[in-house]
């Protein structure tokens, strides 16, 4: 199990699927860790684990390299292709450059899931989809069962099958559960997951090599951006206390620099680090499952310029990328030998930094307006390229209580150095919401002219929910799932179509929220009034009014009366006798 870098126990939920058996064909398992230092003391770590199972074995439930629990859930729900994403945080394009895997391995904040389900009718597909969600929910300890019909959409333009399918009657269903759910929250608090951004993915798809040898492939990735300084803090004391005066890194050229005055320059430096510093332990050596030779065997790569020196330990040897390719170095590890390296301190001022790939387009989505009744959505696309236009699909899945006005959907060029007329909106796919049944689905095909900033806006109304439909934290607002942007017509180096995705941040929608204590006040007041009114009316209604002398006497009354009578007669006797005497 402990193959690459040994990860904390919490990750096992995901990595149980990486079954590590001793007798396997080497091609059935592959693993890799890419480390890319990013500016401002950050580090991008991308883990990838991939394993195969032949389709026959998969169908007969003879699972060897495929996790049984997941395989059974998929088979039960008739799922042919599955893509599951857990993401937390925001990829900072400005500082970190292009996304890892071109954004194909990341999802919206929270949980995102899309799958191709085999079924004859749409109803059946939906039923299977819900079954799948329930199953995955239990498997991943994530609240994916909340991806119900209202959060499910059927994208037509934004997602494409990546596997080789023979059956045509496949239904694509897509669901997002925005917010703090899933494995991401499970891992929260751990040192490794004190990351600025992290994304985990599971992809299952069938692949046919030559039309005959069909395989089921499971590909798992974990990407995270770590802050090296933060990651290096001891686990027992993660508080960033003020450092001791001698630890301060000051700019001593400042005229005012003195014993008690320090202009800090530490943020511009990347501290020295090693695998042990960042992940808590060194790599445990090469995995016996993986290939022992060839390019795939070099399972740990470091994307740094060749000019930079790294001290490596005894457990592996270094292979640098040939000239002409992007500068990086990979390490071949030896099975059973722990491996680590020491990366010296670098500074922006003195060291050459690796050139970050620029994102083809940046998208920023914000909400405009204020108040509880209306609002607007604004998505700003910036195309930095001076020559190339970018065609993309903007996919939005909106909750039903956010009601967009499609007639207000506008796209306009805000800033441009491109002098010609340009048609921005090429195509539109819109599926309106049904209250409490399903959300709105908008897919817009846009074309962004070169060197331009395009703003896509629309207005919306906010619905008033029923009293019981509010969550316990109603005043927080409702999270609107991020928009998915798929960039079209891009090809990789070998000319194949290349999928590039990016996602905007999620938004907080403030709905009109009632004062929840009010009903209780009303209930209390009404109850009091009811009690008073009911009491007196009931009293009057059931009481029989009779004259005093009509009241029949009860036993005690009789007794009292007779006693009184006796006393009276006795008195009379006495007084009478007295009177007699006086007479």
């Amino acid at each position, binding site marked *: 199990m402990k193959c690459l870098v040994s990860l904390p126990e919490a990750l096992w939920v995901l990595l149980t699927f990486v079954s590590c058996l001793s007798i396997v064909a080497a091609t059935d398992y592959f693993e890799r860790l890419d480390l890319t230092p990013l500016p401002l*003391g950050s580090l991008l770590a991308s883990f990838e684990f991939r394993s195969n199972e032949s389709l026959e074995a998969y169908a007969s439930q003879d699972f060897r390299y495929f996790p049984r629990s997941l395989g059974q859930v998929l088979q039960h729900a008739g799922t042919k292709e599955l893509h599951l994403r857990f993401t937390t945080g925001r990829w900072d394009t400005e500082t970190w450059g292009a996304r890892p895997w071109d954004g194909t391995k990341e999802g919206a904040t929270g949980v995102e899931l899309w799958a191709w389900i085999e079924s004859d009718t749409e109803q059946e597909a939906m039923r299977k989809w819900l079954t799948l969600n329930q199953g995955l929910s239990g498997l991943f300890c994530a609240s994916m069962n909340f991806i119900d019909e209202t959060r499910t959409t059927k994208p037509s333009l934004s997602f494409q099958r990546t596997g080789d399918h023979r059956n045509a009657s496949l239904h694509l269903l897509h669901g997002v559960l925005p917010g703090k759910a899933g494995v991401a929250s499970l891992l929260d608090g751990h040192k490794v997951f004190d990351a600025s951004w992290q994304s985990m993915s599971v992809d299952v798809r069938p692949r046919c090599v030559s039309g005959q040898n069909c395989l089921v492939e499971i590909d798992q990735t974990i990407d995270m951006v770590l802050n090296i300084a933060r990651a290096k803090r001891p686990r027992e004391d993660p508080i960033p206390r003020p450092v001791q005066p001698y630890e301060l890194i000051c700019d001593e050229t400042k005229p005012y620099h003195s014993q008690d005055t*320090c*202009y800090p320059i530490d943020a511009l430096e990347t501290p020295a680090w090693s695998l042990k510093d960042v992940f808590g332990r060194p790599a445990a050596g090469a995995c016996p499952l993986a290939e022992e030779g060839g390019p795939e065997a070099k399972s740990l790569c470091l994307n740094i310029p060749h000019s930079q020196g790294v001290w490596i330990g005894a457990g592996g040897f270094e292979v640098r990328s040939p000239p002409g390719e992007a500068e990086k170095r990979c390490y071949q590890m030896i099975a059973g030998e722990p491996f680590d390296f020491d990366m010296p301190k670098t500074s922006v001022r003195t060291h050459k930094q690796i050139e970050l790939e620029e994102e083809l387009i940046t998208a920023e989505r914000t909400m405009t307006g204020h108040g509880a009744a209306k609002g607007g959505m604004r998505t700003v696309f910036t195309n930095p390229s001076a020559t190339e236009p970018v065609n993309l699909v903007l996919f939005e899945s909106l909750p039903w209580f956010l009601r967009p006005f499609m007639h207000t959907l506008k796209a306009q060029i805000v800033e441009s150095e491109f002098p010609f007329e340009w048609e921005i909106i090429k195509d539109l796919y819109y599926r309106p919401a049904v209250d409490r049944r399903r959300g709105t689905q908008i897919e817009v095909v846009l074309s962004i002219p070169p060197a331009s900033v395009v703003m896509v806006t629309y207005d919306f109304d906010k619905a008033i929910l029923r009293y019981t439909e509010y969550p316990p934290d109603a005043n*927080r607002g409702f999270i609107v799932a991020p928009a998915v942007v798929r960039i079209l017509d891009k090809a990789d180096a070998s000319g194949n179509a290349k999928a590039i995705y990016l996602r905007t941040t999620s938004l907080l929608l403030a709905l009109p929220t009632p004062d929840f204590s009010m009903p209780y006040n009303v209930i209390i007041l009404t109850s009091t009034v009811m009690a008073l009114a009911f009491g007196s009316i009931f009293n009057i209604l059931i009481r029989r009014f009779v004259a005093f002398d009509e009241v029949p006497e009860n036993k005690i009354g009789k007794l009292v009366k007779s006693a009184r009578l006796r006393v009276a007669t006795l008195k009379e006797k006495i007084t009478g006798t007295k009177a007699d005497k006086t007479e």
Partner: protein
Amino acid sequence: MGLLRSSLSNIRTSPRLLKAPPYISLLCFLGGIIWILLLPLDEYSRRTYISENALLPGQVHTYFHGTEQNIFRAYRHEVAEVLEVQEHVQQDGSKAYMKATPQHRNQRIRDLFGNSGIKSAVQSYKYTVGGQDFEGENVYGVVHAPRGDGTESIVIVAPVENFEGQLNTDGVTLLLTLARYFSRWSLWSKDIILLVTPDTSTGPQAWIDAYLSQHDPEMVASLSLKSGAIQGVICIDFPFRHSFHALHISYDGINGQLPNLDLINTATQISAGQLGIPTLLQSQHLYAKPEAQHHYLNRLKVLGHGMRNQAVGHSTGAHSVFMPYHIDAITLTAVGDGREDEMAFGRVVESLTRSLNNLLEKLHQSFFFYLLLQNNRFVSIGTYLPSAMAVGAGFSVMAIYLWIKSGYEQREEKDQQHTKATEHDNGQRDRTEAALADASITNEQLFNTESAGGIDLARRKVWKPIDRPLVLPLTLIAGLYLTSLIPLAILVTAQKGALLTRTGSLCSVLIMVPIGLTFVLSNNPKLLHGTYFDGAPLEKQGNGAPRETGLVHSDLSPPSDSKTRVLQFHTILKSLSLLVLGLELTVLATLNFSLSMFLGVLCTPLCFAGFYKDSSSRAVASLVAVVLFNPFVVANAATLAAKLAGYYDGSVGLTDVLRIWLEAVSFGWRVHGAYGVPVGVFCVWLPAWTVATLGTVSSFVMDEEGKVEKRVEKVKGIAKDNLTQVKQAAQRRSSPSPARKRKK
């Protein structure tokens, strides 16, 4: 049912009851004011408490100390270089004093943000108000929450110049040092936006407008860097270099809106409770000693300051502009000379930010409507609102009273027989009216017997229901309220230089309006009498007969003589005016309590001023009232009071004070959307004043027919009459005589 009806109509015309409403209304006014005066007492106010459990104020350790101070000192050098006037030695050896340009300043601030690895951006804006440009550039940085998605954010603001125009060098430095410190923590659940604005009014306004995309792109640039929904705003104001004694919390927003009380309580709890730095409110340090803050008078002063700020509804700091967008904000200002240094201030901000960071929902638990008396005592809306409502009700009571009064006239009846005959004549009339008339007779009998000492029963005065002509009064009232928008528009659109002269001419025009109206009405008797007499000569009209008129169909007879008619017109006019006034004040009380209260008190004399033809002493009193309680006189008196109270130094004249105020009103209207004072004065107070003045002037210049009195002697006569009356009254007081002379 009939019994109930007649007893009700008995009440309606009961002479004792008819005398009561003015006193009830007076009682309402006095009650409202006394109510406010009771609020500072312990019995009527409450101790503050934290409602929102998530805030956990002061529950965290603060670590902003030690070597952070070394960095603060270095940043202070950097910031002072671009903020303060610097000495430059020129090539020829001479010294020059100059200040860095705003661009240079912002570049330095951006560099300091960048030095901590924080993304930053600038935003420029330019407001033009009354021909004057307010130009500037905001610079701000965003500390992204490490694992956050940018859905929520906290804003920390440090204006370069504070509300008093002092340079906030230490505040800006503190913001930058805190920014660096905050970016090292990994516990943030919300993004932290650090904003440096050139001033406290235009900069924050431009920024928040653009943040919510509510800005006018002509004047304000869009923001290139954004984050999520703003959960709270803390403004830092540290305008001196020495250590301080206490933190002053400002919280008044535009149009008297207030932040959630939890925010103020949290700041107080952290500062005064956890860190031992006293907190002050409403410039308390200027008039209340720390140990005497709980005294009645000091609490009343805090209350008064709070109410004044709320009524004026102008910006009181950088925090004010956030309130209209339902974003809770406060300003913390260091005051006094004490032992707390900048790091202590920083720890308060740190702890407060941590508390806001804990929030799961928007601040909504605690009060949004409150009056603070001390840093730990407040009055909630349920306790203070009745006072403004009582004042509003005072006008409504008076309006209803005048309305009832306008529907009846006193007529002399020969005897019982005649009355019955009249009743017979009006046989077709509604039975209720008959019963009413019947009832009134009985009452009037009583009344006459009582007051006149039982003279001649055959000659009685009876209250007769009469027709109310409403067309003219309604038109006048509607016209007055609609035209009140004209001076409002003139004032708020005036150029800066022309503001004072324009207001002066506006003032003289507005004073002439009621006088002019009086003369128009008196010179056109058709206006007054024509509505239900078809313009036919008065003499030819029969009394008591129901009539079909051109405009109003009514079964009731019109007033019998022109004197009653004029009186009735004024009564209806005033009734309608007071009705609208009462309504406006009541509605306003729920929006801006203090403004409603102040307007209500200022309008109180107008409630009693009006048309008094038969009592010249009352007419004179109401003239005094309308002269004194007119917006222009009150504004001038207020400038004098402000000058005497020492708000402005000696070099500022009274006119200058007025000019400053007018500029503030115009600026507030156009930049902040502060509508309170101009709308309150022009749309609530001025129409009420105009109607009261119309009545008062009429009682001097109109004769009984409603025409302008030709002879000036008559006016003199009134004065003489007044004098004799006063003399008689004095005599009566000295020698009480049983026979009281009743004036007809």
